[in-house]
């Protein structure tokens, strides 16, 4: 199934993705600045009012910044997933995608490899963010208090969440005809996914405020991604979250492979002549 050509091609796709990422310094900076602003400004401001009583996976009362960290990690992956999809549309419009599609690689492999490369870039961003957050904790700007082992146990959760968010973006990009249309899709996807979730507030508190809003949060796969990361960061496994994230990934990737038409935006599909 997977042969030598595929392994070398995967390496090539990773190589290009990282080269492009490091050359687009603004992308790297914005990927870090966005969650750091949330962490430093939002959590510092709300620290006094939003401290949280113990509930799973936390053993004790936690300051608000501890609660926010998993949501911000997932936010980085959400933005990266959409950014990767945007670059797929860009490649399709600029013609670079044609180079990929005229190689002897199956189309499903090309999409999975692109997805894998996007996940690898998102891991780099998340760990850079966690390192900076750790730095702030060390100098007592924040009280994160994450067990160092948590930085390792969170890795599988980040991989699977990155895969889901990238696959969702890819499925969306397969349906978008032109680059300009994707900005609108992002506004209708990124912000609702992030805000209608447990990224900023715990579900029990949302439930107390509005049951309808709580229900929307439970329908959002991003909520399960955030919770999966939250539990994994504290060395625990959240089975329901893992299941929802895995199933959503498979469905989104299946849709992307089915819907992906390289000629979209260039020409209509042909019919039997």
């Amino acid at each position, binding site marked *: 199934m997977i042969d030598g050509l595929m392994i070398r*091609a995967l390496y090539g796709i990773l190589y290009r993705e990282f080269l492009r990422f490091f050359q*687009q310094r603004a992308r790297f900076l914005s990927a870090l600045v966005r969650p750091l602003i949330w962490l430093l400004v939002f959590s510092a401001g709300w620290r006094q009012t939003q401290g949280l009583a113990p509930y799973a996976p936390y053993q004790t009362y936690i300051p608000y910044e501890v609660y926010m960290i998993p949501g911000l990690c997932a936010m980085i992956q959400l933005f990266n997933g959409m950014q990767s999809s945007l670059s797929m549309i860009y490649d399709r419009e600029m013609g670079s995608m044609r180079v990929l599609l005229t190689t002897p690689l199956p189309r499903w492999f090309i999409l999975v490899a692109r997805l894998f490369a996007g996940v690898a870039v998102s891991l780099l961003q998340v760990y850079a963010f966690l390192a900076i957050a750790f730095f702030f904790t060390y100098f007592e700007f924040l009280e994160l208090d994450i067990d160092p082992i948590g930085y390792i146990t969170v890795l599988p959760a980040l991989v699977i969440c990155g895969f889901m968010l990238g696959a969702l973006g890819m499925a969306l990009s397969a349906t978008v005809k032109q680059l300009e249309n994707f900005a609108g899709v992002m506004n209708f996807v990124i912000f609702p996914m992030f805000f209608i979730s447990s990224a900023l507030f715990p579900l029990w508190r949302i439930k107390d405020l509005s049951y309808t809003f709580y229900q929307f949060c439970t329908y959002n796969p991003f909520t399960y991604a955030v919770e999966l990361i939250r539990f994994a960061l504290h060395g625990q496994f959240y089975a329901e979250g893992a299941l929802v994230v895995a199933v959503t990934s498979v469905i989104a990737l299946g849709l992307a492979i089915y819907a992906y038409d390289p000629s979209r935006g260039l*020409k209509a599909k042909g019919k039997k002549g």
Partner: protein
Amino acid sequence: MTDTLSNQSPHSEMVPTAAISIEGVSYNYGKRKALDDVSFQVLPGQFTALLGANGAGKSTLLSLITRLFDTPDGTISIDGKSFASHGSKALAPLGVVFQQTTLDLDLSVRQNLRYFARLRGMSSSFAKQRIEETLSALEMFERVDERVRDLNGGHRRRVEIARSMLHQPKLLLLDEPTVGLDIQTRRVIVNHIHNLAKADNVAVLWTTHLMDEIWDEDHLIVLDKGKIIEDGTVREILAKNEANSVSDVFESIIIQEEERLK
């Protein structure tokens, strides 16, 4: 349909496998017929010019050959392997230069070529050797570490040709590769590809609407409104039409076709 031409012939040892064989290919955009029962072959070492006016069906044909579009009717085989039976693996012996630049502008020439070499499953050492060989042949090796964005159109085109030859393809497909280039650069590229076909025994399929890019010994296919209306060597076609130049042939064919359709 058979996979190879050699299977079709009782004298299989004597007939080389066609680098590309197209049999009975048709394609429609809705009700509009873009290609109508197109069949032809290109042999190794043969330079084939695919000539046609805008809308003749050249781009659709190339999209089918590169498998960007699925082939609903007919068979396309590259080096004896059809898409129907081999899927994307049939694209292995194919090198393509698209009309539009498909290089990554923010990467260097070397990085672009390395990326492509990986996609074609080449080892690092072989890729390094081929990058030097193909760029040197086009007098571009000294610019290997420059960003593609800093190169002019002619140099970018040379890099694309070098990239298309990196994996030593048996069939090279070029879609109007000289569009927008100055006369001198055009001449360099046309000469290079003609020489390449002979020296490396590469089959070339070159789409164009510029007559001066076609040489007398070339194989010429004229496409009009989705149909092949001429298929033979330039000399044969000139003799058949009692014409002095390809340009005269092309114009008279188009006029005849228009009158026939009136």
